[in-house]
């Protein structure tokens, strides 16, 4: 039996949901106190517990899956994972909805987005507005002009000997194809040998948060099989959330030596583009910010990469954008408030924000007003 929460309170300040409310019941600790008695791995038993899933659900599910609480916790307890476990045994409609959204409607995203832009704002029912806004920005708004042309410094000794498979993730595959093509072009220019990534499917991260473990495992199995078949090449990733869930395969679907090989193979695209030199273009604004995706954890190479290319990058003080997990579906209002707080964490002079996670780009753009724009860094560099 796993030992649960000690109520030390270390996870309060790091949780973006707690930060919205400053109430203990919204903290990871609070959610655990409600869920652990229902979770058999922590010795819980729903039949004996005084509160059942129905009575704790509305509080317990307020989680964006950002993983910050696990990092802060001395016991490394992941509240997002516990929520996923409880969800797996107590399904709720949002999970089905999200599963459908990711698995079946992927190719339709751009047209869904387009449809959304045609619905006048005033006609969207209020509670659905945040979802509607996300759908709107799913429609590709066309080219962002790059802030810099980059090339590999000829002196740079990047090891390009191993072949690379580019893992693009659902958002890029469905609505931001130019991120994949951009990453592709850059990696080729650096001299990497790229294999066909056509056999990859969704990383499964969102399925995990939704507690759809069956669907998650199927996706994981498919991705791992494809990697094996391709001769275990490097996997280049440009989305922090995809990277986070791919990283989680080790110790789950992959064990032993192969888990180690997998971890060694997973590489952020910004790491592969070591030794980049830049020539700025006129499109580079005077002030710009960086939103740190939660899912790079303590190992965010994108910010180092971008600080070199675009000095003066201003890191926001906000926590999580609120996109993670299935919060978008289960509580769109809270998810939106979190995005707004994240944007409020930048000084007023900044209207261009760059980040390295597909989910953050979608979520923050949906919440951004005026001429504020949030770009993936792949939109801002070109050859």
């Amino acid at each position, binding site marked *: 039996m796993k030992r649960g929460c000690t109520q030390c309170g270390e996870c309060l300040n790091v949780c973006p949901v707690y930060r919205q409310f400053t109430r*203990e019941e919204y903290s990871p600790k609070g959610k655990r106190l*409600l869920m652990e008695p229902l979770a058999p791995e922590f010795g819980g038993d729903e039949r004996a517990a005084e509160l059942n899933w129905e009575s704790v659900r509305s509080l317990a599910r307020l989680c964006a899956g950002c993983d910050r609480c696990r990092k802060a916790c001395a016991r490394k307890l992941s509240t997002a994972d516990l929520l996923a476990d409880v969800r797996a045994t107590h399904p709720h409609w949002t999970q089905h909805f999200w599963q459908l959204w990711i698995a079946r409607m992927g190719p339709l995203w751009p047209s869904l987005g387009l449809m959304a832009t045609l619905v006048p704002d005033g006609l969207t029912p209020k509670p659905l507005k945040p979802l509607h806004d996300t759908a709107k920005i799913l429609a590709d708004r066309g080219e962002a002009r790059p802030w810099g042309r980059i090339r590999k410094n000829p002196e740079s000794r990047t090891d390009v000997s191993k072949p690379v498979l580019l893992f693009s993730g659902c958002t890029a595959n469905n609505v931001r194809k130019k991120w994949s093509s951009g990453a592709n072009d850059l990696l080729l220019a650096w001299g990497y040998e790229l294999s066909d990534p056509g056999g990859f499917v969704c990383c499964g991260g969102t399925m995990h948060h939704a507690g759809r473990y069956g669907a998650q495992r199927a996706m994981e199995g498919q991705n791992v099989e494809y990697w094996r078949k391709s001769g275990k090449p490097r996997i280049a990733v440009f989305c922090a959330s995809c990277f986070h869930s791919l990283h989680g395969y080790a110790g789950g679907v992959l064990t032993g030596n192969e888990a180690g090989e997998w971890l060694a193979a997973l590489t952020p695209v910004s790491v592969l583009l070591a030794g980049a030199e830049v020539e700025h273009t006129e499109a580079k604004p005077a002030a710009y910010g960086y939103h740190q995706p939660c899912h790079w954890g303590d190992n965010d190479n994108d910010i180092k990469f971008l600080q070199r290319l675009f000095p003066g990058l201003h890191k926001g003080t906000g926590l999580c954008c609120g996109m993670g997990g299935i919060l978008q579906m289960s509580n769109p209002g809270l998810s939106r408030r979190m995005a707004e707080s994240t944007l409020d964490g930048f000084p007023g002079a900044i209207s261009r924000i760059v980040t390295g996670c597909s989910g953050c780009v979608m979520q923050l753009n949906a919440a951004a007003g005026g001429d504020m724009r949030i770009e993936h860094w792949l939109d801002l560099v070109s050859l």
Partner: protein
Amino acid sequence: MMYASALTDSHRVFLEDLFGKDGLSFEPAVLRVYSSDASNERGKIFAVVRPADTGQVQKFMRWADAERVVVHPRGRGTSLAGGCVPTVPGIVVSTLGMDKLIDISSTDFVAEVEPGLCTATFQAEAEKRGLMFPPDPASGKATSLGGNVCTCAGGLRAVKYGVTRDYVLGCEIVLPGGQLMKFGGRTQKDVVGLDLTRFVVGSEGTLGIVTRLILKLIPKPEASASVLVGYRSLDDALSSMTKVFAAGILPAAAEFIGETCMDILTRTGECPWPGEVKAMMLFQIDGGRETIGLENARLSRQLDDALWKMEGVDKEEEDRLWSFRRRISAASYVLGPDRMGGDMAVPRGKILPAVRRFEEIAAANGKRLVAFGHAGDGNIHANLHYDASDPDDAARTAKTHHKLDKAVLEFGGSISGEHGGGSLKDVGRQLGAGEHELMLRIRKLFDPNLILNPKKGY
């Protein structure tokens, strides 16, 4: 004492009118969260309220006293002594809705805050202005200032800078009955009347609800340096510390790490020290940028009998040294998945005999004592690990824990240097009968109907 045993409909209406939907909950899921604390003990509550200002606290306390409704004030619930556990069913007052930093002055060296403000957030605000709020409980990121004041929290820096009590210049509290009392003020000196501010510090929520604090700040030292020193035994380590103090050096922190902790550290991670190192001291000194090197050299000269030494001068290097000390708490779980902790204090010169005696008691009950702590102020963390699902282990652990409390008194010590009596400690073992009785009489002057934190504290 007769207390309200449930809330009536008119009680509920009163609370709804006073706190509105956002400041009140009767929801079982919400109440579950507020019915325990870091002691992991639990009690029953009727409601939780979340006042937004002092006026609301006053109206609430007038009502609660008249209706004999028990009140459990709560900061962030990190009490390890069960200070927030509802011993008698009542209403929890969460202060987290009152978390404003009202004023911070670099000329007066004073800050005024509401009690729900997080300690670490406040410290960071002070540091931005070149100021420091020295009390530094290890739980500072998780605690409220109100909670710190009501428990008189202490930390690593206590040896040089003292504990929370030394930094509270004044406070406002709401008494049962609703009267607002203002003690002390913004002056660093004030000897008029009884020092009732000091009564409130460490009172564990038994005298009133703290609604405002006036805190003292000092200039933040420009620089610091740390040294981690290895010895053959705890005996050697502590005698080396004695030499440091005898040479007139007052470190900002002086931590000891006993033999069992060293065993745990070597078993659970990478360790840079040689195998013969069986105990350690970790010193930190602070001061001006120009003089820190000299101070460091002065300290080093006193540590010439060490087997091994590692120095750190900037934040990154110091963090590396401190990471070993910080690792102990989580790493100790290799000795058992559950923990019973002690936070006793002894006079500085008694640390060694006390630790040895505690170890003996633990061994006699088939347990290993994990001893580390603030050597500079004699505060010993005496932790016991066990497996709660093994009844025999759990019983032996509880027995050992109990005996340690008794033993600490033999050394002229205190059964709690930091966490307080809460709902778990039998403070009558330490306090004289007459003194204890006087404390209870004072308590009754503030709270005649004993509605605040009954059966807690003292």
